[in-house]
Every structure is written in C-alpha cells, then in structure tokens.
C-alpha cells in the first residue's frame, strides 16, 4: 500500500447558504506534487485552509500526515509548511530574522538553528541578502524566503497557495526548481494551487480540477488530456472542458483585489 499523506472524506465547508467545498473526497500520496486547479471562487483556498487547520470543516473528515484536522490540529501543524498566496514575509524584519522567528516557532532545537538557517539561505540563494530588510527584496526573493520559512522544519507536506502569482518568468522558474528540489532532496509532498496550466502540466504528478466546490476530475495531466479524446489537447482545454469558460467566473471583488495587490507588491 502506498503512503497516503492527505485523505479527505466528504469534506464540506459552508459559509451561510454558500457551499464553498462540497463533500470532497481526495487522497494525496507521499512525494507527489499535487496541483489544485480551478477558477477563482471554486473552493481551492477554502480547501487548503481546512487542511492546514485554519478553518474548521462544516462536516466530513480529513487526515493530514495521519492526524485528524479537527481533533489533532496542533499535531497537523507540526508536520506541514504553508506559503499563503499573500506576501507573508515580514518586510520590517531582515531575511535572517524572518527565518529565526520561524525556526523558534517550529521548535527547531537551538543547537541546529544556525546551521538550518544558513543552509536554507544558501539553498534559496539569499545568503548575501540575509541581513537586509525584506522590504528591499525583489518579488522572487520574497517568495524564496517564504518557502525557506515554511520548510525550515522539513515538513512532510508543503502547502503553496498560488506560489508563482505575480512573478516574472525568471523568478517563476526559480521557484519551480526549488519546489522540485524540496521534493527530490527531502521527499516533501507538495500540495499547491495554481492558475498557470502549463506549469501544472509540466510540474504536477497529479491535478484535481475544482469547480463550484466539487472536484470534477482528478488524475495525471497526461491522462486528463487523453480523456478529452483529442491528441492535441492541452491542460487549458481540459480546464475549460471541466470548469466551463463563463465570463462570470473570476472570483469576487475581494479575490480580485487580493490577487492584484499581491501581484503589485511582488512586481
């Protein structure tokens, strides 16, 4: 039996009359890069927030790294890393301080702290900028620092919410190389959401397409493309096929404002 690190059973979250995530059942295996695709408002962020224990489910169950998200939320948090879509590194601290604080919060023993931070800074190519305030960093540097913050404790699963939004192509490529390296070097399972189909196509071992709170299809990108019956089909076509191509999609005012703000700050 393969190792399942995320397992949800009829996981549901409602906000008033709106069902953001509807009776969702998925499994993610250890070491996978699992991509969650879907238009804004499909329920991707709500699902991630439930899995990282920021939001309690309305009904249903989920286990992350073997722990129940509702009953053992603190244990779940010890095994995961989370990089929000928004910019979460603190601009008024230096890169080193940002890492130091998280090393302490994640209970990394004092004797290992300095070495872990040094290694992380080297891996992310931030060693020279470690003592500069983060507000002077470029967008790509901030994203790399955030990933470093969330992986200092070598999490089993790294959750990334739109990790490449607002980044230029060079920075985006660097982020993807980093994610791939975490997976090969540490066996970290990656659970991410993205809007970029070509990225999902080349990087994800499996993707799930979400629409209106439901997972409408899940599988390896190649299988999903093959399922359309057109040999030239791209993942874009798969996405449009399952998630529709309605102009109504695009998320709420708040979603849009948030995405644009992140893009602006990163750019």
């Amino acid at each position, binding site marked *: 039996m393969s190792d399942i690190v995320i397992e949800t059973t009829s996981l549901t979250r409602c906000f008033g009359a709106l069902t953001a995530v509807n009776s969702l059942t998925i499994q993610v295996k250890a070491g996978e890069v699992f991509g969650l695709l879907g238009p804004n408002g499909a329920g991707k962020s709500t699902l991630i927030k439930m899995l990282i224990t920021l939001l309690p489910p309305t009904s249903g169950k989920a286990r992350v790294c073997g722990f129940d998200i509702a009953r053992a939320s*603190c244990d779940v948090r010890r095994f995961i890393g989370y990089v*929000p879509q928004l910019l979460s590194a603190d601009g008024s601290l*230096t890169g080193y301080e940002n890492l130091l604080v998280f090393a302490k919060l994640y209970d990394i023993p004092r004797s290992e702290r300095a070495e872990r931070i040094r290694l992380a800074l080297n891996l992310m190519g931030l060693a020279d900028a470690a003592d500069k305030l983060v507000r002077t960093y470029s967008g790509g540097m901030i994203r790399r620092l955030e990933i470093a913050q969330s992986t200092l404790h070598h999490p089993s699963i790294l959750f990334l919410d739109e990790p490449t939004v607002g980044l230029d192509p060079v920075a985006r490529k660097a982020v993807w190389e980093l994610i791939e390296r975490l997976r090969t070097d540490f066996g970290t399972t990656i659970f991410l959401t993205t809007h970029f189909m070509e990225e999902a196509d080349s990087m994800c071992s499996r993707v799930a397409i979400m629409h209106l709170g439901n997972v409408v299809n899940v599988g390896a990108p190649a299988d999903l493309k093959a399922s359309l019956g057109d040999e030239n089909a791209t993942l874009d076509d798969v996405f449009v096929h399952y998630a529709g191509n309605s102009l109504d999609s695009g998320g709420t005012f708040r979603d849009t404002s948030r995405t644009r703000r992140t893009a602006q700050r990163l750019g």
Partner: protein
Amino acid sequence: MILQEQGARLSGSVETKRPCASFGFTAIIRFVKKTVVIAELEARKLLHDPTELFTRAVQPTLWLLVFGQVFTRMRAIPTGDMRYIDFMAPGILAQCVLFVAIFYGIAVIWERDLGIVQKLLASPTPRTALVLGKALAAGVRCLTLGFFIYALCALLDVKFKWHPFALAGVLLVLLISAALFSTLSLIIACIVKSRERFMGIGQMITMPLFFTSNAIYPITIMPNWLKVLSHINPLTYQVDALRAMMLAGGASQYGLISDFCILIAATSLLVILGGWLYPRVAT
C-alpha cells in the same frame, strides 16, 4: 495506523515525540517560549524602526507641559496636599499606555491583509501564546515611553518614589495594563476585520475610557453616574496603582492588591477570549 506511523517517520529531527495537546510543565514551558518569540518578533520590528516611539511621545508631552502646568497654576482641581502636576503624572502615563495599546490591533488587520497572520496560525503555536506575545510586545513599547515620561516629569519637578520595589511595581503595572488594552484592541480587530471600522471604534472608546477614569481628576469630584462608570473602568485601577507606587506620598484608594487582582483578572479573561477569536481574523 499506517498514517500515524508515517507521521512519526517523516518527522525527521523536529521534536515530535511530545504530543501537542500535552498538559503540565512541558506545555507551560513551550507556551512561555512561544509567547516570548512573538514578543521578540515585535521588539525586533521596533528596533528597526523606532520612529513610532518619538511620535507617540508628543501627546503626553503636550498634556504635561500645557494642560498640566496651566491647571497646576489655576488650582481648579482639588488634589489635597499634592500639586496637580504630581497628581496627573501617573494619569498621563496611563493615558500613554492606553493610546499605544488601544490602536495595536490595527497591526493585526494589516498583518492579516499581508498573510502574516495566516502563516503564524499555520505554525504549531498556541493561539493564546500568539495573543499574549503581542500583548507583551505592546508592553515593551509602553515601557520605553514610560522612561520618557519619568524623565520629563523629573524635569517638571514631580516628586517620585525611587525605591526599587516601587519602580518594579510601576513596570509591572505598565506591562499588565498594556497587555489588557492591546488585547481588547486585538479582540475588536478580530471582530471588525477592517481598518476603517477599527479606527472608528478605536476613536470611539479611547476618550470615554480616559475621561471616565481618575486619570486627570479625583473620583470624589465626579457626579454619581460617572463614579459608577469609573469603577467599572480598568484604567481607574491602573491609575490608582500607579499613583500609589510612582509618587512620593502617593497612596492607593482601593488597595494595591485589589488593583493588581482586577487588572490581572481582566487581562487573563481578554487573552483567553482573544485566543479564541484570533483564528477568525484569517477567514
């Protein structure tokens, strides 16, 4: 079962042997450590940019130099044998703490919009430690202003108690009351979640808190309805304790023990409530 084993195996060198939900000594130590880390985070920010402390010092300076000196000459407010400037010095220090702490919650809304709150909440840090750490950090800000106000008052010839126990007591009251009002502020932030609404509510409650306390006039000259309000206002007990411990010849009206008990009980209640509400800010 397989998942459980895997969880333990994948843990690597992270300390995972002790389950999170454990109670007792280890849990307390961990709670205190995390609280200090959050306070450290805030203190480091302040070190990088201490501008705020200078701008915060303007208002108490005006109160002491202008209001204080004018009213000391007028002798309009009956403060017994005590000069009015001596009487109001602890009140202005308390006001300073209140003003710094009550707007502290806006930083939480800012951090929420940035995504910092979400990342902190996704780390294995107890919610109450996040709240108490912030509260402690507000205390550190207030202490630096406390030094400034002591220095200014000394120039104005306010007669202080310089006994180390008295000074330690003042320090403690400042920390507790900063924690109290900053947690109140954080609770408001968790409920309203928007900067505009927060500013409105912040403005709305600061002045009533200040004027219904004994900060700048004794409770004895208040009308009865105001006396009632004054007695349920925690600022009154903060000022009472400060007056007793700061001033040579100062005495507490309610007793220092009751002052401390009321302040600590109110702070603890608010921290627990804040810890419960804090995750709401991320959703």
